[in-house]
């Protein structure tokens, strides 16, 4: 969508931004303070991932798959592992499935807390951002303790999990409980601040109809009242045993996305603790390498931004013939443009950060 003519001023931002974020470019047509048109330009993070993967051994490509997008690594690795396990016809043991759920929920937790902080930054509320970053750091340290990596890279692998670094037990459960308490205090502080709350309310409204028409997923969709979530649509792994409660909000604005992420955080912290209790302190089993032959399948997993999809086609001896990455961010970027319409320019960062979508898994 573009706007031109008398009174329209074009504001262009990116691909280099003022903060520390990924590269993307936005062309905003403004009429006074109002956003009259909003155009997104992508591809700055395009590395040629899907082409680079062709011909590689499917199981051996897992570390590369984990490094397509740092913020979605657990969900994408899980989706990819499910695809390969489907092709090989193998089942993963119960403890490894519990650990996968734990890792995926931890990824959701650090992403969502980061997003709450980013929304605060969008409203110029520095304390909220700093306090959220402090909590994010504590979650990264928990991730390192459980998987050996602060971002859970290579934690979920085809055939199971990499569990040699796993250090579960009561101390980690207690730390998650402390994080939960500090998070509740932060959320209370943010929403009790009238000027911040009023920036959130009514900004970047997305209607339930728009989100369905555009095929939106994840918390952005659930903030419009639709409880779509791959974890319960077709429960996979340990989600069949540990069922998540799916939260929704009805407003479709920045406040609704903030609140739905807060609700999801409470639930993810509960799920993670539950998985940790079941797992105990004992070491995790080593992954059983799947014997992948020729075939074609799709693996999915619900990530922090929505469903992550990996379509995989393999040839003889398990060499990749094609990998198609359909990320939640790719599905949701059109929502950002729709939500931006009619807002004022100063709310652009706020609305954008209320979605906080990835460029890396959009551009590939």
């Amino acid at each position, binding site marked *: 969508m573009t706007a031109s003519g008398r009174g329209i001023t074009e504001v262009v931002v990116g691909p*280099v931004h003022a903060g*520390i974020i990924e*590269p993307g470019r936005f062309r905003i047509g403004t009429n006074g303070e109002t956003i009259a048109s909003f155009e997104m330009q992508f591809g700055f993070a*395009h590395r040629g991932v899907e082409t680079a993967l062709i011909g590689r051994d499917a199981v051996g490509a897992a570390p590369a798959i984990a490094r397509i997008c740092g913020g979605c690594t657990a969900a994408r690795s899980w989706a990819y592992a499910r695809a390969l396990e489907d092709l090989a016809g193998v089942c993963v043991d119960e403890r490894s499935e519990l650990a996968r759920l734990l890792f995926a929920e931890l990824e959701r937790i650090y992403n969502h807390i*980061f997003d709450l902080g980013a929304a605060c930054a969008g409203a110029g509320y520095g304390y909220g951002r700093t306090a959220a*970053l*402090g909590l994010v*750091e504590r979650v990264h340290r928990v991730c390192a303790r459980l998987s050996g990596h602060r971002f859970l890279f290579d934690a979920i692998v085809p055939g199971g999990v990499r569990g040699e670094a796993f250090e579960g037990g009561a101390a980690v459960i207690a730390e998650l409980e402390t994080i939960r308490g500090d998070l509740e205090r932060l959320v209370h502080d943010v929403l009790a601040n009238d000027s911040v709350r009023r920036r959130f309310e009514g900004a970047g409204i997305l209607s339930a109809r728009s989100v369905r028409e555009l095929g939106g997923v994840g918390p952005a969709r659930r903030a419009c009242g639709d409880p779509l979530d791959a974890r319960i649509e077709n429960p996979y792994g340990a989600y069949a045993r540990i069922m998540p409660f799916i939260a929704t909000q009805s407003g479709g604005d920045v406040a609704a996305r903030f609140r739905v992420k807060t609700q999801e955080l409470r639930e993810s912290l509960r799920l993670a603790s539950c998985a940790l209790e079941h797992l105990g302190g004992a070491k995790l089993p080593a992954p059983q390498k799947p014997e992948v032959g020729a075939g074609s399948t799709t693996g999915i997993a619900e990530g922090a931004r929505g469903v992550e999809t990996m379509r995989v086609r393999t040839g003889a001896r398990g060499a990749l013939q094609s990998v198609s990455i359909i990320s939640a961010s790719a599905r949701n970027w059109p929502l950002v443009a729709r939500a931006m319409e009619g807002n004022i320019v100063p709310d652009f960062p706020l609305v954008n950060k209320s979605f906080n979508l990835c460029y890396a898994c959009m551009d590939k």
Partner: protein
Amino acid sequence: MERYAHSLGIRHVACGSCNACEHEMNALESPQYDLAQEGWQIAASPRHADVLTVTGPMTQAMREAAAASAGAMAQPRVVVAVGDCAIGTGVWSGAPSSGAGAGVELHARVRIPGCPPSPDAIKTGLGRAAALLDGKGSNGETDVLR
């Protein structure tokens, strides 16, 4: 930690990273790492920066913008390569739209390995950059050990 006389303005340009390096750069502003204590700040424009941090393998689409950002900085300046992709050893080196590494292409004098490097490692690397700007340390390239 060493004390550095030099305060730093730091500009960051992501050149096709997976965003994990950006997350760790953002962690520098958390209470645990608090880069303001060192007298350092993230500058919104390369015009205000002494240090350019770069991540990623350098995508074709970012090459021009990254060079323009480096070119907009006043001398003396130091380019710091953050992460394996930027130093040319990442998993996407050799991908069809990837370059030799953002730090390799922009002649980084400080290289911080890691996938991603920890916030502590990034802080150490920025300390090396501050020392270089103060005329201390070697005039050549410097590596932060993993």
